[in-house]
């Protein structure tokens, strides 16, 4: 009720220096770290349930199994900060490696599944190119034609998934060329490369979004697009780039998982978008734009996957895992509401 009071000309009868000057800053930093206690708590609970939880082996397992979704979360975070959303990322995740496989793999090896049109070396460029094209098409409809982002990308989600089903006939592409499987299956310094890649991308994301003009432009657009435009930010161009970068990241994530599976199932990424949104929002990214950090998003996805791992280790009956998963998301939401301290937006 009191929120109706506070804006307007006479905001407070008593002048405002009632709060310590640095509180907001502290709060902003705190919000970045909001999930750290929860992560520690889950780690302890997990360790109690099964000492295996904190073994190097299991930690690597958690990090690897989250690495691809984490990159999707990073992509979604970039888009959310600009005040848009991109549901189609989950389909790009499957379609981009799917198209590359389709064009590259030899039909002789796979009972006629591929076209074998391009040499193997083209596979990875094609993956990224498909990502860029999808992002550019989204940009065309959203930025250029002013269509609503939610519904454009919902349409794209369905259409891109349909396209993958169409070219594959619903089957799984396998016998992928080595260039496609390398990144998802190799290890560097004893740790799977996909972990390195996802951590690196998050580090880059933290620097770009936190410490470059381009990154700050995303926040400015999400906070108030008109004001950003008035400040000389080329809002349209930045939105295009954000959408394209997000789609390319999704394509890259798809490449990683295809490498890990050494195959591209037609259903790759199906339903992942729910998890992606949940992780981003639990990590403090606002659906209304302008708020949230890459580090927060990372903690969000880490927390989710740790909990899933604990539930698996605890041997929760199969039919109740989904329920517990949902419950965890809801609880995380309520908790982040309490630590966040005000109505979420």
């Amino acid at each position, binding site marked *: 009720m009191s929120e*109706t009071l506070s*804006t307007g000309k*006479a905001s407070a*009868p008593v002048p405002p220096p009632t709060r310590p000057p640095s509180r907001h800053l502290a709060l902003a930093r705190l919000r970045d770290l909001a999930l750290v206690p929860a992560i520690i708590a889950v780690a302890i609970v997990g360790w109690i349930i099964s000492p295996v939880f904190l073994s190097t082996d299991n930690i690597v397992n958690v990090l690897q199994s989250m690495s691809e979704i984490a990159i999707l979360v990073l992509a979604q975070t970039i888009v959310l900060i600009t005040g848009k959303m991109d549901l189609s990322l989950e389909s790009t995740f499957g379609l981009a490696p799917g198209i590359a496989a389709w064009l590259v793999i030899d039909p002789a090896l796979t009972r006629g599944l591929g076209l074998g049109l391009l040499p193997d070396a083209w596979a990875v460029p094609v993956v990224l190119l498909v990502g860029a094209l999808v992002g550019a098409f989204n940009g065309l409809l959203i930025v250029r034609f002013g269509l609503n982002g939610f519904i454009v990308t919902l349409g794209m989600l369905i259409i891109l998934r349909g396209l993958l089903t169409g070219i594959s006939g619903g089957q799984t592409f396998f016998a992928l060329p080595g260039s496609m499987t390398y990144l998802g299956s190799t290890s560097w310094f004893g740790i799977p490369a996909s972990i390195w890649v996802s951590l690196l991308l998050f580090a880059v994301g933290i620097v770009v979004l936190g410490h*470059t*003009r381009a990154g700050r432009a995303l926040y*400015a657009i*999400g*906070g108030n697009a008109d004001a950003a435009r*008035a400040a000389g930010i080329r809002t349209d161009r930045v939105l295009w780039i954000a959408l394209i970068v997000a789609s390319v990241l999704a394509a890259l994530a798809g490449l990683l998982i295809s490498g890990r599976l050494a195959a591209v199932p037609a259903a790759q990424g199906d339903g992942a978008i729910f998890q992606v949104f949940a992780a981003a929002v639990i990590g403090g990214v606002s659906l209304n734009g302008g708020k949230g950090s890459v580090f927060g998003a990372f903690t969000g996805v880490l927390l989710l996957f740790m909990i899933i791992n604990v539930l698996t280790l605890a041997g929760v009956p199969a039919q109740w895992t989904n329920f517990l998963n949902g419950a965890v998301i809801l609880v995380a939401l309520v908790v982040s509401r309490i630590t966040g301290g005000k109505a979420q937006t």
Partner: protein
Amino acid sequence: MSATPHRPGGGPVGEDRPVVEAVDITKRFGSTLALSGAGIMVRPGETHALVGRNGAGKSTLVSILTGLQAADGGAVAFDGRPAPPLADRDAWRQRVACVYQKSTIIPTLTVAENLFLNRHARSRSGLIRWSSLRREAEQLLAAWSVEVDVRQPASTLSVEQRQFVEIARALSFGARFIILDEPTAQLDAAGIHRLFTRIRDLRAHGVTFLFISHHLQEIYELCDRVTVFRDARHIVTAPVAELSRQALVAAMTGEDVTMPEAGRRPLTSDAPVLLSVRDLVTSSGAELSMEARAGEVVGIAGGGGSGKVEVAEAMVGLARPAGGTVTLAGRVLRPGSVPDALAAGVGLVPQDRHREGLVPSLSIAENVTMTVPDRVGRYGLISPARRDALARDTIADLTIKAAGPQVPVSELSGGNQQKVVMGRALANDPQLLVLITPTAGVDVRSKQTLLGVVEDVRRRGAAVLVISDELDDLRNCDRVLVMFQGRVVGEMAHGWSDNDLVAAMEGVDLHHV
């Protein structure tokens, strides 16, 4: 004084080239012609005023002069050279800085970042140096004695602080030409004073200003020349000293609007007490006790932060008070309940029409009848015919300029929107009419209409509360309560002098020091 589609201006042009010259500008938004062959010429070093009624096209011209929008036709030149292409924002910003009418503060970002948006201090590696950015921001704000932590999000600023951040940012570009679109609308007297001192300072250093305001006295106080727009056209440009207030208003409205003061019927001393407010305390600590009699118009004045709006909102149920009672015609209002207040016969014009006054996507008819569903139908059903009939009455009574009751409010001009809000407040034939800053951002003509309604309502025997810091709003009150820092510090009977009231609002009592 007909429109001049060609080069505007009068008087001798000096040897200097004009800082900016816009010629024959036309701009259309869908079916609305916002500017039609309008122009302006601003000379170096002068402070040029631009006035006109709501929707005259002033802000549209500003957005064209600052390169935010392209004109459909016409030309803009700076220092005699054609304006840079729209995409080259940096070139525009070297030529002109601006405080826009619509806030360009980004609430989610820190104050410091807002000040240096898209021109952050960077190290050689291209990364932002947050510490030096913060230092620069602190220095900048210190010059305006705005005391805020630059690290806090801009959403925590008061409206006034926010306005100063905008102003400080616009002036920090080092541009030689600065446009201020209604910079004073959100400031109290002290703030305005600070701003004007600074403008005079800069002017002494040769900075040119284009200044837009609905407060005509500010034009006379500050400006050298004035340009008047009406109905999307340029009407006249003249030195301020050569244009009387009468003539200025006539140019703005196209008609002579001075009217004799309507016969003020003195309040009968035996009129019953209608409203009684006892020890009302708001959640932010402002306090009020008062009474109002039938037919009485009571003003509540106060500067920014005086608590006048809070007590008014608590009174009508928009906010839940921390304590106290409000009694209207013997009925004690339920605290924090707007429906109860409406049922008791309260009519309300809230402070900010965009935020609380209107549902822009709905029609005039729906907005006007929103508080009185009972009067436009039975059993929860709504009769469109009765609704439209009621709305048509309101449109006629308040001279709302609209094609009909079905027009969505979002398509009305600002002044007409405010009239719709007034219409909504009057729809339930209120016993108590509460008007919170009812003429904010409304041109002189619409002001008259709105304040005229007050006279009608008091004649019907209702009580009226006018909460405002605009003297014109308060002039017709039988008495004015003055609030300062959450307390009533004085009461002035009808006929107060401007100086006394302003002093009281500033917390200075001229008579009882």
